[in-house]
């Protein structure tokens, strides 16, 4: 599976996300900021668990990167770091949404529960792992390019100060490296588990058949068929 093909798919997703009416509203000062903050937290509160799952499936060539990601999610990569879920909790509290934390936690847990209990679409863990890795890397790719814009929108229009936005600023700095590593890891994963190019690309395309960012961050969007 060629990296440039996957990169092009990611770029189209990011373009559609930032071109969506919901994203435009966020930057223009007329977004539903509380819903957006809750959705971002819900989407990423359980990231350490998902990265741990991917680490368990990682081929040798990608294991070190995924372990690094996992330690970072847990705030264990450097002494000064905090676990990423804690940064999201800070964001909720700073936005005056601390009272929603239990509900958001419950919804994030329910999302994991749903993934685990839903019948598997694929026949083996290798396909499940490729689909999950695709989505994680897609988010890293998007965050490395867009999280700065999201942070600015929240600072400008929701009045959040820099410490509250650390989850976003951290990702804009770190995910440039992660995204590039991630693209290489996707290729390593597909090669190690002996996917043909067609098989791997079909699973990547299926994972990205909808805009994964819009789906997670703007859950109540009413427009369907956002062009990709």
């Amino acid at each position, binding site marked *: 599976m060629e990296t440039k093909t996957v990169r092009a798919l990611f770029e189209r997703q990011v373009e559609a996300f930032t071109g969506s009416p919901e994203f435009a509203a966020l930057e223009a000062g007329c977004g539903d900021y509380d819903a957006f903050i809750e959705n971002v937290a819900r989407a990423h509160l359980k990231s350490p668990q998902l990265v741990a799952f991917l680490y368990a499936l990682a081929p040798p060539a990608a294991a070190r990167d995924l372990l690094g990601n996992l330690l970072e999610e847990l705030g264990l990569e450097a002494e000064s770091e905090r676990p990423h879920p804690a940064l999201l909790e800070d964001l909720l509290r700073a936005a005056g949404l601390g009272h929603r934390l239990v509900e958001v936690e419950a919804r994030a847990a329910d999302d994991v529960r749903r993934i685990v209990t839903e019948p598997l679409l694929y026949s083996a863990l290798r396909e499940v792992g490729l689909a999950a890795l695709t989505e994680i890397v897609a988010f890293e790719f998007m965050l490395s390019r867009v999280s700065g814009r999201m942070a600015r929108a929240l600072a400008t229009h929701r009045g959040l100060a820099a410490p509250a936005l650390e989850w976003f600023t951290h990702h804009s700095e770190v995910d440039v490296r992660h995204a590039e590593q991630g693209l290489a890891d996707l290729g390593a994963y597909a090669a190690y588990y002996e996917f043909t190019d067609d098989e791997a690309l079909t699973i990547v395309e299926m994972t990205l058949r909808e805009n994964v960012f819009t789906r997670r961050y703007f859950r109540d969007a009413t427009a369907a*068929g956002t062009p990709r």
Partner: protein
Amino acid sequence: MRLVGATLYALRIPFVEAFSHSATERRWSDSVVVRVRDDAGTEGFGEGAPRPYVTGETVETMLEHLGRDLWPRVAGRDLPPAGHLPGLATFLPETYLAGALAPNAARAALELAMLDCALRRVGRPMASVLPPRRTRVTYSGVVTAGSVERAVQHARRMRAIGMRHVKVKVGFDDDVARVTAVREALGPGVTLRLDANGAWTFERAVAVLDAVAPLGIAAVEQPLPRGPVDDLARLRQATPVPVMVDESLVTEADADALIEAKAADFFNVRISKCGGLARSLAIAARGSAVGVGVQVGSQVGETAILSAAGRHLAAALPEVTFVEGSFGTLLLAEDVSVESVRFGHRGEAPLLTGPGLGIRVVEERLRRRAITVRELSTEG
């Protein structure tokens, strides 16, 4: 047990990608969900999908018909016992809707809601009314319209998730190339059906079917528009591909006419289209009695409510050749139940064993996704 209230929700749930065929393109679910409440506070949920080109209903006329004609005739009355589906069907009066072939989506939605409510009240599963004859249901995949390239992409996805039965939407200038490309992408081990949604003329149907028959086509669905059944009977004689009727099969009278004319190899029985579970069972039984195969079909964009009902029907029928539906969040941005009804690898899905329809509907999602909500009481 008396029904004391109902809520109608006209939904608009976005699709994750557009679904198109020769008759229309859909970007969101436009089902109508009915919630009924009895005098003990038990709730039940049903769903219908109005289709102007199938039953002649629209969302607006369905809401109107439910509120004005159907609900007032069941509100405040004692429901028959939970275990008696024919009694429940009879309890729901025959109604007519001007300009429609039959108000079947409205009828199906209310029938399912009443059945769900009656079963929940006594904590019994659907299996107590419709005993299953199999332990799991195997669904078909669908390749929607669009370019041939997109059709091939969809076919590859179907292969990736191991679907054993796939239907391709046809009714376009490039039908032969489309079916050929999809067959190549799927490989020989997958059962392939076509669905023209009534888009072909007789001559076009014969030409396309003759060309693609060597590719191994299990059936062609609704090749001609709904019309004289003799046309379908003639086509059946003119092509080696088995003919399945869909839009031509809405009522029990349609079933009788199709059987009389020997116009179909398969019936596509859809709960919303056919007016509920009881009538779907009756139509399927009429077909099976004379050797006509049965497909349990679905409505594009149906929520978990109709999908659950379809699964119970598919599990209970003595013979069922193909089953469609239960796409869940493969198609909908969000489904309405706690439990996922989506099929898994190879299109397989387990039976639903909880009380009533076997799913727990999240009312907050209905309210959030509704463009219209109407409350009905015993006063109307």
